[in-house]
């Protein structure tokens, strides 16, 4: 278990992380979200022991990252932002180096290296020097070194940044497959990723937590939660039909398409059955009709901008 309590990190006068507290349990995949400069990377750098906290503490399975740094670091696999690695080494040399530093000896080294090469599909670039690899391969080399010692805690700073959709998919399924008995913290600003891989999402802004919950819980905070999207083939006065329907809060027409409507629900309650009944009775010329789960992006924007407004005001 990772416990972060009252963590503060200052750079001179600038407060990057401000009294942050949360804990992560085994089996959780925590999506760490926030606008650029919110303090995501700084928090990860403190958790992994690269930067010392200005105040507060971080413990990994009871080992304090400041006072028992080596024990804590042994439990962590870390992919730093940008997946840095030694460019003049080949993939194989680099991974062997990591395996040795991680304490593997003799035949174990080759076994572990072969295992991770398999896991992240690096077979084709085994003997290529890392500086000649494409961005996607470099990222995978970084992932390979992070999972070398089958760590209990996996901390990945923007693992899919700059990858093409196929590679993203691959990395996500890798994270999912690793996650069962581990603690995984993934920072990202791709929101679909959170819905795809994370069991919990924490949004931070200006160094503070502004939202914390499962992706579904966060989505339900959206004003689009339970809203119904309707696209018509012909113009029809939906607003008049819906006036008397209970639970309907308001109706909006899309700006770019006069036939696409969004019907908002009052207080996030389900209005599917009422609205579909009306639609049948009034014979709406429907081409599309579906319920929104809510938009994480919208929640993200609203909670981070609120926080910014407070910080500036």
């Amino acid at each position: 278990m990772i416990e972060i309590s009252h963590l503060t990190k200052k750079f001179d006068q600038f407060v990057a992380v401000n009294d942050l507290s949360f804990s992560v349990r085994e089996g959780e995949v925590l999506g760490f979200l926030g606008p650029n400069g919110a303090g995501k990377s700084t928090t990860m750098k403190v958790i992994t022991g690269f930067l010392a906290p200005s105040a507060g503490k971080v413990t990994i399975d009871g080992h304090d990252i400041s006072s028992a740094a080596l024990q804590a670091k042994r439990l962590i696999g870390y992919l730093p932002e940008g997946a840095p690695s030694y460019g003049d080494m080949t993939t194989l040399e680099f991974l062997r180096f990591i395996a040795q530093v991680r304490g593997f000896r003799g035949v174990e080294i080759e076994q572990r290296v072969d295992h991770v090469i398999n896991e992240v599909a690096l077979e084709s670039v085994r003997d290529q020097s890392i500086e000649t690899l494409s961005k996607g391969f470099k990222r995978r080399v970084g992932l390979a070194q992070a999972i070398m010692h089958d760590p209990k805690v996996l901390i990945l700073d923007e693992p899919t940044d700059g990858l093409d959709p196929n590679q993203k998919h691959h990395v996500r399924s890798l994270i999912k497959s690793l996650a069962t008995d581990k603690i995984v913290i993934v920072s990202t600003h791709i929101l679909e990723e959170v819905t795809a891989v994370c069991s919990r999402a924490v949004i931070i802004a200006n160094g503070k937590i502004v939202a914390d919950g499962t992706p579904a819980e966060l989505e339900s905070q959206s004003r689009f939660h339970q809203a119904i999207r309707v696209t018509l083939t012909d113009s029809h006065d939906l607003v008049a039909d819906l006036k008397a329907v209970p639970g309907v809060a308001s109706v909006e027409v899309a700006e770019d398409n006069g036939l696409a409507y969004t019907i908002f629900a009052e207080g996030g309650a389900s209005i599917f059955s009422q609205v579909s009944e009306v639609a049948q009775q009034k014979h709406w010329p429907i081409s599309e009709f579906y319920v929104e789960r809510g938009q994480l992006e919208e929640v993200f924007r609203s909670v981070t901008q609120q926080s910014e407004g407070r910080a500036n005001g």
Partner: protein
Amino acid sequence: MGNLGIIFKRELHSYFATPLAYVFIVIFLITNGIFTFDLGGFFLRGQADLLPFFGFHPWLYLFMVPAIAMTLWADERKTGTIELLLTLPVRLVDAVLGKFLAAWVLTGIALALTFPIWVTVNYLGDPDNGVIVAAYLGSWFMAGGFLAIGSCMSACTKNSVIAFILTVAICFLFVIMGSPILLNAFPSWAPQWLVDAFSAMGFLTHFDSIAKGVLDIRDFLFFSVFIGAWLLASAIVIEMKKAN
């Protein structure tokens, strides 16, 4: 093998994986040759010793050693690998020492490859080989002193060119500290202990006696402590500056 050894091996290997080690060794040998035979008048002196060879080493190291040292930490910071290295279960002291030792061994290899000159002087005359061995060792320790300064300067910046210039400047200061040029520049009211302390910190003070065959353990001790102090400073600077 502990982590120090693993890091040492990786660093040394990476010198030879790039042309850096070869370029360094070749240029080192060529300039050594020019200095010894041309400027040093190795043959004209008609003496069976290597004084003209060793005499130029402080000046040769002044530019060659900072070139190796400049990338030690600056490149780690620039490429971000410092974050990788220092989040592995590695003690900072192992990283600092491992990197330093790899660079030091590289200068040792370059120095050892000057052996033909030793063979030559033995062929031409009958030198005191004990003196020559001591001078080789002394020269290597002095290179270590330059490197340790370089390690610290390299830790100060992401830019290896700046690290190079800073290292050259500081090394130059330590080279001339013991020389009459600087000591004569002291005003007459300066207390003697200050002049002595200055002179005692100078590389030339220590290296000249080693090169002449005066094998004083205190000179080696000086370089060892000097190296230790600058490496400690490197570790402190890395700890302080790794955030930016």
